[in-house]
């Protein structure tokens, strides 16, 4: 029984981390219609900068937690203005390809700046302990992660459902032209959404690095996972992404526990299943 409880906690913390990482790519795709294939790169950049701040400059964890997401968000902003805005007229496929080329460029920049070895970030001292729950030792950092993740989910949900800002975003998801016609500066909305998406990527980068580490090539692994969650959850809702993240988190954790040889296959089979049975995802709306 206690083993299962441990797996439950693991699945939960993994799923919550997935949520933080994926929320960024989901809102950008939902609203801008652009599948940002450099999203994994932004996450990794967040991890690397976090590493430099925490491990090299010796700054406290919470400082990095505040500073890095904003830094990444600004970088995302610059990217949107310089690369995406001028190319809206080229169509969505072109923009996807642009972000893909960008991911390649980022890859080499990371190697040049931070080298090729795997880097490890230490969690904050206070959380670098194990907590006893029902006979299992669970790292306190993971518990903290679960709490943070749920808080973020609630915040995002509240923003989307209850604020005017959220209403604009929800409307923009359904009908961009109409929103523009109503007098809202749709380009400004786009930029803000990209800012927010990059912010989440950076936040995920700092939060995830004590668990996942940082190393070259990681951005593509993260990207694939995000795509799985994106597909399963569907577009346009925080709730959907949250449920999907937890689902994928649990499926991965439990399949690794029970049938490790098949765990890779099961995750993608889940993705394929959802795509065939319910292409719009669990809670999303159809995107043409």
């Amino acid at each position, binding site marked *: 029984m206690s083993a299962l409880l441990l797996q439950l906690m693991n699945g939960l913390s993994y799923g919550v981390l997935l949520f933080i990482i994926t929320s960024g790519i989901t809102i950008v795709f939902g609203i801008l219609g652009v599948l940002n294939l450099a999203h994994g790169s932004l996450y990794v950049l967040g991890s690397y900068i976090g590493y430099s701040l925490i491990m090299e400059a010796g700054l406290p964890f919470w400082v990095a937690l505040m500073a890095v997401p904003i830094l990444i968000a600004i970088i995302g902003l610059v990217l949107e203005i310089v690369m995406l805005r001028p190319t809206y007229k080229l*169509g969505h*496929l072109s923009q996807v390809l642009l972000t893909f080329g960008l991911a390649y*460029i980022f890859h080499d920049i990371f190697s040049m700046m931070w080298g090729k070895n795997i880097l490890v970030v230490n969690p904050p001292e206070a959380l670098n302990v194990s907590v006893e729950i029902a006979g299992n030792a669970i790292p306190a950092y993971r518990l903290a992660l679960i709490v943070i993740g749920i808080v973020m989910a609630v915040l995002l949900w509240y923003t989307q459902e209850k604020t005017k800002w959220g209403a604009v975003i929800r409307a923009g998801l359904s009908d961009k032209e109409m929103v523009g016609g109503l007098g809202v500066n749709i380009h400004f909305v786009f930029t803000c959404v990209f800012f927010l998406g990059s912010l989440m990527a950076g936040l995920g980068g700092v939060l995830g690095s004590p668990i996942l580490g940082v190393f070259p090539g990681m951005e593509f692994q993260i990207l694939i996972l995000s795509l799985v969650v994106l597909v399963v959850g569907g577009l346009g809702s925080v709730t959907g992404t949250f449920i999907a993240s937890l689902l994928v988190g649990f499926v991965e954790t439990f399949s690794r526990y029970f049938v490790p040889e098949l765990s890779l296959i099961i995750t*993608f089979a889940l993705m*394929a299943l959802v*795509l065939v049975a319910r292409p719009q995802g669990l809670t999303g709306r159809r995107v043409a």
Partner: protein
Amino acid sequence: MKKGPVKGTLLFLLMVLVPFFLSIYYVNILSEILILSVFAVSLNILVGQTGLVSLGHAAFFGAGAYATGLAALKFSTNIFITIGIGLIFALLLALIIGLLSTKAHGFYFLMLTLACSQIFYSIVYQWTNVTGGSNGLSGIAPVDVFGGLRLSNQVFVYYFILVVIAILLFILSRFLHSPLGAVFIGIKENEERMKSIGYNTALYKNISFLIAGTIGGLAGGLYVIFNGFISPNDVYWTASGSVLIMVLIGGVGTLWGPVIGAAFIVILETIISSYTENWMMIIGAAFILFVIFAPNGIVGIFNNLKSTLFKRQKLEHETLKMIQMKQETKMDG
């Protein structure tokens, strides 16, 4: 005599004579380019002609390669039998994945092909007894063409591949202008309209998938004959991404575009990686430049040059080789 086939035959002659004045190193690079051209051309049928952007094409390459390799290791050394088995496997896989995927559109089609290809990758990686797992299949000996003619020399392999691709390109150029080819293009331009005319677009999409997958398997079979080796690396999604880049850079929707794209990428990778470790950055930058400034690929640049230089000349013969495609696909809207 029409200009298209003339150019093609001259090019073929040139390629036949290449081993006489280029060293074996360059002949081998050309062999690789030709094999990847077959791969890229097969993807182009899906992406360029039928408008289905797939990120799972490496699965068919892998199916053809592994099946051919296993056949060569266990059953026979006859090249037609081994590649034939490779083609059959690729066809079966294309049938399965195609039936699943063609129901989806745009982004979902992309993701579904990715997922299916990753499942195939995982099976190949895990099934160590059969596929050699992460170490791959190696030790695949040279095969025979007819009875005594053994492809033991790299130059012979080059000629075999050259003949195969020449035949393939010839058939495909005819196909582009056949009624079936036109249906594919129609589906890319406007699927709804095709449906309203009465075409069973799902069936045609499946056929397109089958053709593309089988030819992709052919590329895989040729690859194994050439290298004597195949590993799961070549079935990973980054391989699918790479061939997609080749098609897009070369010129999507054209006959020669994918060939040029394959040449471009192989030459870039081989030459640049000898000078710097940061070749990924260069390919990424090149890719971005192409997407922004040359969305119709190298072939597009070539066409633009031609039309500005020879503004008055009617480029009739171009239609034999190329059909201009719009950049829009199912991902818009």
